[in-house]
């Protein structure tokens, strides 16, 4: 198990000791709701960090807000911390970062092969909805909660509610990490939502875990996802592999590969 967002996970110690500013604390709470690793860590050290937190509360008492006392292993007070936005060095650093970010974006636009209108050449590439037939998945036994979550996810997928589908399928994957079909449909759902980077990760996992027709399909959709991420070289490699498999998606893969070759020339 790993932290899903180390940039936020690193705040854990100050969170447990009640030393985060309000915005940081909200961000960390958002994170802990979805990150099993950090939740497990907070749980594990709960009694000990509580002792330290109470020590901190006692040390800073008298300047706390009137929000009441300790309420549990996760909730805590923010303590006396000067709001970050009021610190001059932080403001200067923020302005410098903004300038750097704008420069990076401008450079990226110049080198990404955008057209004169500024649009990516792959923006109009159509992502077809991958078909789902419940009977196809009868051979994979999904008992208990994983099965229920998968079925709920696919019900949402069938009615084009991709956000709900992805949410349910993610939970199914946590309970059954080797479920390639769940990863595939989650990847397609993310692609339909325009969350292309996440879709790429998910579909890569599906390629690794699936076989036969699903494997070919996963590779094809991975190619689509990579294209949507403006990574035509990697997309082409996946599409070539799909063509070599000579399966259902061969024709579509050939057309897309030809389009990449034309655009790159």
């Amino acid at each position, binding site marked *: 198990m790993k932290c899903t967002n180390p940039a936020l996970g690193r705040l854990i110690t100050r969170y447990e000791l009640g030393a985060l500013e309000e915005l940081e604390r909200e961000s960390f709470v958002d994170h802990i709701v979805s990150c099993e690793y950090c939740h497990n860590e907070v749980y594990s050290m709960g009694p000990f960090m509580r002792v330290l937190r109470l020590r901190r509360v006692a040390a800073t008492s008298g300047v706390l807000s009137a929000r009441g006392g300790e309420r549990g292993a996760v909730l805590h007070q923010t303590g006396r911390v000067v709001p970050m936005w009021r610190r001059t060095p932080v403001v200067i650093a923020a302005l410098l970062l903004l300038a750097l970010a704008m420069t990076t974006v401008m450079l990226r636009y110049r080198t990404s092969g955008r057209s004169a209108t500024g649009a990516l050449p792959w923006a109009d590439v159509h992502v077809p909805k991958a078909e789902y037939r419940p009977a196809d998945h009868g051979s994979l036994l999904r008992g208990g909660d994983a099965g229920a979550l998968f079925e709920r996810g696919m019900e949402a997928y069938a009615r084009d509610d991709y956000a709900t589908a992805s949410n349910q399928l993610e939970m199914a994957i*946590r309970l059954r990490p080797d479920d390639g079909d769940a990863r595939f449909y989650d990847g397609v759902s993310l692609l339909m939502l325009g969350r292309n980077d996440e879709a790429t990760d998910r579909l890569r996992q599906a390629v690794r875990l699936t076989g036969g027709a699903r494997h070919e399909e996963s590779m094809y959709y991975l190619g689509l996802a990579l294209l949507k991420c403006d990574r035509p070289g990697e997309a082409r490699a996946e599409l070539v592999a799909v063509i070599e498999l000579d399966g259902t998606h061969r024709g579509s893969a050939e057309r897309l590969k030809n389009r990449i070759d034309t655009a790159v020339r």
Partner: protein
Amino acid sequence: MRKRLEHLLALAHQGDQQARDEVFLFLRTRFLVLAKLRVGDDDAEDVLQDAMMIVDRRFAELATAEHLLAFTDGVMRNKIGNFYLMRDSRRRYMVSQPEGGDPTYSIDDELAAAELEDVLRAAIDRLGGDRPRCRALLLGLCEGLSMEDLSRRVGIPRSHIDDWAFRCRQALRRILAKDFGLRF
């Protein structure tokens, strides 16, 4: 996910049964993983079921996602402690939170609530033996030092404090497990 959970909680508190089911499915998914890590696959389901019954009874009091997780953490800690007690036949102490709906939790092994601080103090001292900066950092946070003061005292750039704090925390955890035999 937090926004979705808060939304489902709000609906559940208004009587939406499907929303309530989804909240409990989230809790089951999250805490089953935790239970399996602590009590093993065979007993995790039983421990989880016991905990969910208590959460179900107190559900009306749990307004936010954070409170829901905090309360369920406490209930799980209690149930897992009871599990260890029954399995190992050791003496335990129950520590009650102040009134106001907070959960009780048990501390397993021979550790009583009153000894917890002594163990922690000893562990931090031991940490200081190998990593004096870690000790200074943790104690500085406990004293309520600002990030700037902490950076000056410990001699770490402010931008590195969180990474250092995390590593020191993990080192403390290892000492508690290895040198004091505490079960996580």
